[in-house]
């Protein structure tokens, strides 16, 4: 009897142990399948924010993280995920193993004040908004320092076509009289296309009334590969300081009827 009891204990403890291992493996699989495309295979960031630092933008408790995953982040491309309770718990447990794996983030080298001048001089505000300044034709940068790694931002500047967020994909329409109209694709289906041009106006077309509809495979943003090394570093340093409130820009977008 005692032997049976001991055996049961051993069995139970090994079950508990293997369950944890399986849970983490499960959480990892969920992460790789659903999160890694934006946040990187090890949470190092990419199109989405870094997740391997101890401090996360929307709170770092388990409840905060679960809330972000389940509700998404309005005004960003972070969608709401419908995981069941256990799956969510396993995912958060896995995320915990990633946090702190990044070296303590040092501030980006360079002079943010000069970087701001580079930003202004290069005409970035013609397409991007910071706070309440600038256009919302391109992605908003109000919070870019909190949301993207410097490596990702650098790549986005020198080679914007490397990764184009879906909601900023471009489309060009050639009308019957040969006019080319390019803008951000707002909507497209088998027979129609709706875009927003650089002047923030909607333009809507029936495909059988135009010559051609061409999806843009390259980013609508020009590549700024000619920035000199110091300007680039200073610009990155400036963008890294941007940790503002996204709602400012979101309100402008809403007021202008832009999703």
């Amino acid at each position: 009897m005692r032997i049976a009891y001991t055996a049961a204990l051993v069995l139970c403890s090994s079950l508990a142990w293997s369950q944890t291992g399986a849970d983490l493996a499960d959480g990892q699989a969920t992460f790789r399948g659903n999160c890694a495309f934006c946040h990187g295979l090890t949470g190092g960031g990419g199109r989405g924010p870094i997740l391997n630092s101890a401090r996360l933008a929307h709170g770092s408790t388990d409840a905060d993280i679960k809330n972000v995953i389940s509700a998404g982040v309005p005004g960003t491309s972070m969608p709401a995920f419908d995981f069941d309770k256990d799956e969510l718990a396993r995912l958060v447990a896995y995320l915990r193993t990633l946090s702190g794996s990044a070296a303590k983030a040092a501030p980006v080298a360079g002079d943010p004040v000069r970087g701001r001048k580079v930003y202004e001089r290069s005409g970035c505000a013609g397409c991007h908004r910071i706070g309440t300044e600038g256009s919302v034709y391109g992605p908003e940068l109000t919070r870019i320092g909190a949301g993207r790694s410097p490596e990702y931002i650098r790549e986005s500047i020198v080679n914007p076509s490397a990764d184009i967020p879906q909601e900023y994909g471009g489309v060009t329409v050639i009308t019957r009289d040969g006019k080319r109209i390019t803008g951000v694709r707002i909507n497209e289906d088998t027979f129609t296309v709706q875009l927003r041009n650089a002047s923030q106006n909607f333009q809507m077309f029936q495909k059988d009334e135009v010559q051609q509809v061409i999806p843009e495979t390259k980013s609508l943003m020009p590549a700024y590969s000619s920035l000199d090394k110091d300007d680039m570093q200073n610009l990155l340093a400036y963008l890294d300081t941007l940790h503002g409130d996204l709602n400012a820009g979101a309100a402008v977008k809403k007021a202008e009827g832009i999703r």
Partner: protein
Amino acid sequence: MNRVLCLFALASLLPAQSVTFDRLVHALSEQQNWLTYWGDYSAVRHRDLNQINTSNVKNLRADWIFQTGQTGSLETVPLVVDGVMYLTAGNGYAYALDARSGRRLWMYKHAFPPGRKANAPNRGFAILGNRLFMVTPDANVVALEARTGKLLWQTEMAEFHNGQYTATLAPIVIKDKVIVGISGAELGIRGFIDAYDTATGKRAWRFWTVPANGEPGGETWLADSWKRGGGSTWMTGTYDPRLNTLYWGVGNPGPDLDGYVRKGDNLYTCSLVALDPDIGKLKWYFQFTPHDTHDWDAAETPMLLDLNWRGRERKLVVQANRNAFFYVLDRETGEFLMGKPFARQSWATELDAKGRPLLMKDQEPSVDGTRLCPGLAGAANWMAPSYNPETRLFYFAVREQCDVYYTNPPVYIEGRPYFGSVSRGVTDEPEWGLLKALDPLTGETKWDFRYFHAPWAGTLSTAGGLIFAGDADGYLMAFDAKTGKNLWRFSTGTAIQNSPMTYMVNGRQYVTMPSGSAVMTFALPVE
């Protein structure tokens, strides 16, 4: 045509006749009606109605819309019997409507035991005599009185097990039996096809789609993996009355994306099985995708065609499979005759002489993700194709969409997904879709029409020279069957997730396409 129209008009004035098995066998000679899920037993989905045709389809307009008011997208194909439309909605609802006006005659709501979730779509009714048959989200078969919608009997196909067993398909009636399948291969079930007595609801036979150890085919499963081997039978079969053979597409093995725990070919998953419908015994099988690890089940329509195959008349069964190959088999013997890719595929170098795929390298799901075409939803899926005997072409919806497949050893918990990880749409290219007209004798494409998104809607062919089809952006469209020219379209406002059908009442032809939670019916203006 006028004489035929007159006959139809006369028929609709007669009191509704009981739908006998003989009427089901000859369903194609009742062009005004739509008596089975497929319209008949062979699933050609072609109607000899030509009131709406290539010349006047531009005038087609919405005639009536019935709002079910239920959540979820309708996946049902209605039956029409002598002026009455019978349809099911999701979550255990069903309706009878005046097929000319869409006005409701009765509504049925399945009574769920407390605590059971009810969120599942449903694909339609079967009818025999004055009885309608449907399945429910909690895996019951239900018989209703066609005149009143009153419940006659209800039989549980399988214990609910926390939602592990569900059912969504339209049943098929053969002789005195109603035959149904089961869903749930993503949750670790062992699949089956069941036959129930139409009068009493008593089970007549069961065919297990996953054989046990010791049974023929049982050796294709590692250890006891057959117990949770999947093999759903979630779409309706087709039937050849002369051969007295039932053809049924079997779903994927479970766990879906992790094949390690179920080494072997995993019979009869991803196969077509040919059964004797009187006793449920296997006549032959053909496995399209042995040891599938991409969820490419074989639930797509097994259409029965009698064609001149390379010099002699043969009885064929054809299928545009989820794995991106179009197959032609001899339906008397199961012999493989042809298999040709109809969409981009990056998993098989070719099919061998017996139709078995020869695999490319590195096509298995992996921990870091494997990019593969087609995606998990397949190059084809459950949306129905059609065949036009005049153009001799097979019309179907093609999905051009690729996925990254991940794998991970799954843990089995009753009622929870037993999937073996996930897949995710690729980000390096957009998806798109095609309506394709294919020659079933050669597998060659005669024409295609491009959709902006990968579709979930099937096709209907008519003697008016038209193909009706739907897309994922909500368009119901009509095409010239010969040329593929788009002749008409209507934006229904939400993704279409089923297949159009047509019928005639009092000499007027209608086309019905459920979309979202509404049943939309179209006709030419009355002059």
